[in-house]
């Protein structure tokens, strides 16, 4: 069934706005963050207007309502990701989720010379924590290269790199290339080699159904704000048997059972890692986002995005001087189109697109090792989501052609 785009767009107030230069906004920066439907905004403001209170603490009505809403959101989000709420630790986003693995699991369970495998297409969030840990405890970090012609991971090199490794950290879908990695195979091979697997699903969660229990990864990191939820919240999904191997890296309120002047005893499960006042409004907003997404099949959303992105990619290739990095026409691509023009610098191109009302991302996309592998400093990136339309894509192509004709 086709998506009712008119109805969907009407639920996103921001899509109606005009830019200061009078141009209608066309939002193609969804891989950076998605826009939020009215129900998410309302759920958050309703919390502040009607039952703002601290969760897990008092016995009054408001506190009970806040606690119930926070935990109901956890249930709904966990259910969306095919797992139990006990496996979900709220974090500020995927970055904190990966840092939590580094601080709370890896620091406790890895020793000097243990091997952590990354790929060249990781986001900095999945590189820097491991480099830091390497400095601290002497783990070895290995990088699996990509094939710069197919933009896919070199799986032969991957099979070699994971030998004797303890942890494999892979981005499910590249934020730059839109390439979906063969994660099912990656999990199987890594487990056979005796390694745990951490998947960065920040980009894939808005595009396909992620089933944590079904996939069998040991850790999954997610950000809410790329899937219609608010900024400032995400989660780490952790297998039950792995969570008990983790120790808290942040201590204080909420995560304790008892505190005396002699010492403290701690909570079990996710509570052990959610120190301090929780992100209550954000969790409620994310819960509303997941509920909103539940009315669609993720396959429907992906198919809609793919139709727009593959058409846009084909049309972009017809424009003289445009170079595309990745393969947005592949059916499993997230549809992010990273591109450059051979004579118009990426920053100039982004500003000229902005002048036409088109919001695209420019820069290294927090993936400098990938930029190095591709021998480029930056790209422009157009990325689409559920509310984008073919009409917008056509306007984008028209404006891009105009820029190239006038400025190249």
């Amino acid at each position, binding site marked *: 069934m086709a998506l009712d785009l008119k109805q969907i767009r009407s639920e996103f107030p921001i899509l109606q706005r005009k830019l*200061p*230069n009078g141009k209608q906004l066309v939002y193609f920066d969804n891989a950076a963050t998605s826009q939020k439907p009215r129900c998410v905004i309302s759920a958050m403001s309703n919390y502040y207007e009607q039952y703002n209170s601290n969760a897990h603490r008092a016995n009054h009505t408001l506190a009970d309502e806040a606690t119930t809403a926070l935990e109901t959101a956890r249930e709904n989000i966990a259910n969306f990701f095919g797992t139990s709420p006990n496996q979900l630790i709220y974090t500020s986003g995927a970055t904190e989720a990966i840092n939590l693995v580094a601080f709370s699991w890896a620091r406790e369970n890895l020793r000097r010379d243990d091997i952590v495998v990354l790929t060249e297409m990781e986001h900095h969030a999945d590189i820097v924590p491991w480099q830091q840990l390497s400095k601290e405890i002497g783990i070895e970090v290995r990088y699996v290269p990509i094939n710069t012609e197919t933009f896919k991971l070199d799986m032969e090199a991957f099979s070699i790199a994971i030998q004797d490794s303890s942890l494999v950290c892979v981005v499910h879908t590249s934020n730059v290339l839109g390439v979906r990695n063969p994660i099912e195979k990656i999990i199987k091979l890594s487990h056979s080699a005796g390694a745990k697997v951490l998947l960065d699903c920040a980009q894939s969660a808005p595009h396909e159904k992620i089933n944590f229990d079904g996939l069998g990864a040991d850790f999954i990191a997610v950000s809410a704000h790329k899937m219609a939820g608010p900024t400032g919240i995400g989660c780490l999904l952790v297998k039950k048997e792995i969570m008990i191997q983790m120790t808290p890296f942040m201590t204080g309120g909420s995560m304790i059972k008892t505190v005396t002047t002699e010492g403290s005893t701690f909570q079990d499960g996710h509570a052990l890692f959610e120190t301090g006042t929780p992100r209550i409004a954000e969790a409620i907003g994310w819960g509303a986002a997941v509920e909103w997404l539940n009315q669609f099949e993720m396959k429907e959303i992906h198919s809609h995005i793919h139709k727009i992105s593959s058409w846009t990619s084909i049309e972009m290739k017809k424009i003289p001087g445009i170079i595309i990095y990745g393969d947005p026409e592949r059916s499993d691509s997230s549809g992010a189109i990273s591109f450059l023009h051979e004579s*118009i*610098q*990426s*920053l*100039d191109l982004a*500003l*000229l697109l*902005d*002048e036409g009302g088109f919001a695209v991302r*420019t*820069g290294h996309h927090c993936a400098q090792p990938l930029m190095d592998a591709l021998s480029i*400093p*930056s790209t422009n990136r157009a990325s689409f989501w559920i509310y984008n339309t073919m009409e917008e894509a056509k306007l984008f192509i028209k404006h891009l052609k*105009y820029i190239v004709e*006038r*400025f190249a």
Partner: protein
Amino acid sequence: MIRINDENMWSSNLISIIEEFQDCFDSMERYELLFDYAKNHPSPLPIEDWNEGNKITGCQSRAHVSCNVDDEGNFILMGGADAQIVQGLMAITAIAVNGMTPMSVTKMTPKYAEEMGIHSSLTPSRANGFLNMFRRVQEEAKKLMK
């Protein structure tokens, strides 16, 4: 000695450029003119002299400035960027400040980009470097006053 407007410390050269931009039909024509300035005033700072010391931080393009005074104490800005919009703004800034005293440079306002209608260059969070470049030029001018 160049003529300077007291309010903004803008030279007559700069005021002519602002008027040239204000005569443009629309924003794309203004950008075209800015590209022309970049093309006609390529970086006087050779790329081999672009280094960490003269790099402008917070800019998504590569941008570098080098500031000095001549024998008569007049300010000289030499700068280069790989993005044409930044190079164009840098060229115009050089036309504006070169020949001024360093003290006049420190008193100048950066609102000429706004007056020229280059709206996308105005906020620091744009990370396109114009305001960072302007501040850097003023910092260098302050040092040259000593």
